């Protein structure tokens, strides 16, 4: 009964109902990958209803349709520990048979990059199947005297207030970015999400904020039209070689590098910029990624990449991608590899530098581990 040990959820029930015979014919696949009759578990280390969950539930049926053998793909939520729990589980348990995949987010990358003691996974072990970028736009209040993106230099020396979800959350990117620009920003922590932060901005409690692209378009552009918000810059996107370019969704807005130059008069460089860049990549261009476990055979990785490519032509994908993904395309192959590399590697010196900054300026301790 080896069959019992290779099937999962649906298979097990099928067996219990005596329908095993239907699956038993599949036999050992020699060359071609086929997931016929199998169930693939897509681990999402977040609770149901969040951004990552919505993203996975959007992709799951399409993945099922385009993977060879049309397996069932179920999304399994394993929340906890700021997404470290589910990722640890995947690292410890998943077998390299293509039947368990993991969907990560910036919140999974950040603790890894920061050396959080709860992290027991190593991105370098895994095979990337797909990366799903996102972007965001920073805006300010007209009370700062700034009326258009070109006047960003006026912010220098002003007292700015930002509503943050916490120094180790995705809001680490604006924290490092503003600091790099030399802006005097007071980060008020404890906000539940970017939506909460936007509300504080609308209430006039803060005067600088950012929103991810789709939230910016829907909720901040009306404010811009009403004259109560002024866009400053987008975080930017990465081209195929990993260079920072303008966000295709906001071609008229400068990206972070350009804005940096407008404030400081020189192009960004140096170790502090490198540290910022690693977290920026992990938080935006490589925000969501799909991984296969350590040691997964190349043909299975290829099958996944092909499925993620093929689904892009599907009418369901076409009709719904904008509401789920914004205006960004999910990428595979070399483009995904670049994002994977840039978004999950950081030198020990840079890590120490960021961790020390957080500890010195914001009293952040990452636990007993360091």
């Amino acid at each position, binding site marked *: 009964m080896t069959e019992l040990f290779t099937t999962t*959820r649906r298979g097990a029930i099928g067996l219990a109902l005596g329908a095993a015979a239907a699956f038993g014919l599949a036999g050992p696949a020699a060359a071609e990958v086929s997931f016929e009759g199998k169930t693939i578990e897509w681990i999402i280390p977040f*609770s149901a209803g969040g951004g990552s969950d919505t993203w996975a*539930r959007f992709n799951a049926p399409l993945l099922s349709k385009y993977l060879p053998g049309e397996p069932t793909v179920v999304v*399994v*939520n394993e929340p906890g520990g700021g997404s470290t729990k589910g990722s640890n589980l995947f690292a410890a348990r998943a077998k390299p048979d293509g039947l368990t995949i993991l969907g990560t987010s910036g919140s999974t990358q950040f603790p890894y990059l920061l050396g959080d003691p709860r992290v027991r996974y190593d991105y370098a072990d895994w095979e990337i199947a797909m990366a799903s970028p996102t972007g965001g736009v920073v805006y300010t209040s007209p009370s700062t005297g700034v009326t258009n993106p070109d006047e960003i230099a006026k912010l220098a020396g002003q007292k700015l207030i930002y509503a943050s979800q916490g*120094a180790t959350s995705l809001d680490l990117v604006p924290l490092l970015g503003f600091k790099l620009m030399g802006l005097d920003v007071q980060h008020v922590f404890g906000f539940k999400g970017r939506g909460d932060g936007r509300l504080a901005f609308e209430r006039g409690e803060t005067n600088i904020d950012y929103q991810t692209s789709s939230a910016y378009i*829907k909720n901040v552009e009306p404010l811009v039209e009403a004259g109560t918000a002024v866009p400053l810059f987008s975080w930017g996107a990465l081209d195929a070689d990993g260079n920072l370019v303008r966000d295709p969704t906001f071609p008229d807005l400068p990206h972070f590098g350009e804005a940096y130059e407008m404030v400081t008069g020189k192009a960004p460089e140096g170790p502090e910029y490198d540290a910022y860049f690693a977290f920026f990549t992990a938080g935006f261009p490589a925000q969501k990624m799909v991984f296969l476990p350590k040691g997964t055979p190349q043909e299975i990785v290829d099958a996944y990449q092909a499925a993620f490519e093929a689904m892009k032509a599907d009418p369901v994908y076409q009709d719904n991608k904008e509401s789920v993904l914004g205006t960004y395309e999910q990428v595979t192959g070399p483009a995904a590899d670049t994002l994977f590399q840039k978004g999950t590697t950081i030198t020990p010196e840079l890590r120490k530098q960021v961790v020390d900054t957080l500890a010195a300026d914001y009293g952040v301790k990452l636990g007993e581990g360091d």
Partner: protein
Amino acid sequence: MMDTLLTALVTLFTFQHMAYMLLGVSVGLIIGVIPGLGGIAGLSLLVPFLYGMEPVSALGMLIGLVAVIPTSDTFSSVLMGIPGSSASQATVLDGFPMAKQGQAARALSAAFISSLFGGIVGAIILTGFVLIARPLILMFGSAELFMLALFGLSMVAVLAGRSLPKGLAACAVGLLIGSIGAAPATGEFRMIFNSEYLYDGIPLVIIGLGLFAIPEISDLLRKNSTIAEGNVLGSGWLLGLRDWWSNIFLSIRCSGFGCMIGAIPGLGGSVVDWIAYGHAVQTAKDTSQFGKGDPRGVVAPESANNAMQGGALLPTMLFGIPGSGSMAVFLGGMVLIGIEPGPSMVGPDLNVTYSIIWSLALANIMGAGICLALARPISRLTAIPFQLLAPCMIALICFAAFQATRDLADLVALLAVGLVGILMKRFGWPRPALLIGFVLAPQAETFFYQALQFNGWGFLIRPGVLIIGAMTLISIYFGLKNRVDDTGPTGDAVVTSHASRDIQIAFGIATVVFFGLALWDASQHSFLGSVFPLGVAVVGVLFGAILLIHLWHGHEDHPAFFDYEIVGDHVGSEGNSWFWTGPAWIAALVAATSLVGFYIAMIVFFIAFLQLRAKASWRTTVVMTACAAGFILGLAYMLSLNFPSGWLQSAYDLPWPIR
């Protein structure tokens, strides 16, 4: 304007829309009846079907589901004393005693008609309110939200029980448990004691089940009876409707509260039911029956929690900020069907907003109608011998508990909180006070810190702050005047509680030790990270000390004394088994889970319990175990979840579901 209203109305009454809504309502009813599975689970089930659906039908389905959950979760709150979801915790307080008196049908019908009414009142308020809601919601800054958290905490005054120091100490315990995990200002992890589970704090569902459900089950397990001790079962259906009608103004006020509190993002819906309950007590002339089966204690929270869902729609639709967990999933669903929340919902998309609001009212009518019809037959559950019901309830509670993080640690936490709940019940410590403290701790701390950062101490003289501050003082005044005692008999019986003085003092000392632990932990952290738990622990030590003085020096009839084992209504009746029977069975299940994983442990538990405790025949045992195993398996399959695993699973690679 009239055009918009009419368009919204017409789409609402199409056959297709109604059919999909009925589908959503049905799923919501089934999900809501099972404790621990709230809107989040239900919406996750429906979301995959949303693709390609026509937006209005899809919305109808989603709303149908969201609307009925605070209605149907009343079943388990009233019939079994298990809070069906965080919105039904206060209902347990009077609903379950009513069921124990054989008035389950009365309590249920009062609850459902209140839910229905609350949902409709909520929709009526929203119809007008939605147009002016944006600026109003924006008036609530961090400072006002902090004051609202204080207002919520003022309900402790009314729920503090017979001994005020006890109540305040219990509230302090709740505030401290609520502050476990990351500090809002610095992200430091407090009171985690090197346990990874505590990094995220203890989930609300565990606190709710541990404090309310476990003590009741443990109590019932000791007697060989049914839940309903009277035999007027199923009667009083009409009486429940009359209970509601004679308290209609209370119902209207609570609906209004519910709607407003739901509409303010940040406060969360978990305290709405307690605020409504507290309000009912504060405004009642005769409060002697509260906590012992007063129908007003059912009408108030049930009116509020359905209206709250409507209110919570506002920040979700207007700002894209989910007011509650189920609203987060609802938001996800809206995005999937192409409706982006934002200012346009009161502009060009106003007709969508109205069809959402009225769908909510309609769904409430459908849901409450079905529940009302089911109330009588389902209330017969309380006539089943409890030994047969108990394993099902224990399995259900554990299933609900591990929805939190799907980990064995959830069950361990449930057991630990359950033990605290059992002892609190025994020694007359008010459990609602702890729960309110727990729920409001993060809000109070976060908003206080943010208000200070944004406004400095000047936040104290903002007009909104002053108004809510005055409301809080009034609430405390009425609360202290009408304090409710849910701990049991009063009068002569109490005197004898003095007999177990030593053990009561021991429990008091244990509480003070907990405060000491919190103080020690606070001393390890930075100022911003420790100031809140430090302050609470100091207050806790203070009231703990006062209580200990009362217990040490107090006269025999001092209200601080209480021991349910001496004054409880079970005392003197035959067949009471060991006090620790209930916790022992639950502990056995948790221990077995740590060995062989939850699914196998549950099956073994069922067989062992039915054979050893219930002394059931083998036939009954096999049939019941098989039904339960199949039911839990079906649920887990639909929700695609893995059961908590034990040693066996770490040693061997097993197939689902015993993986």
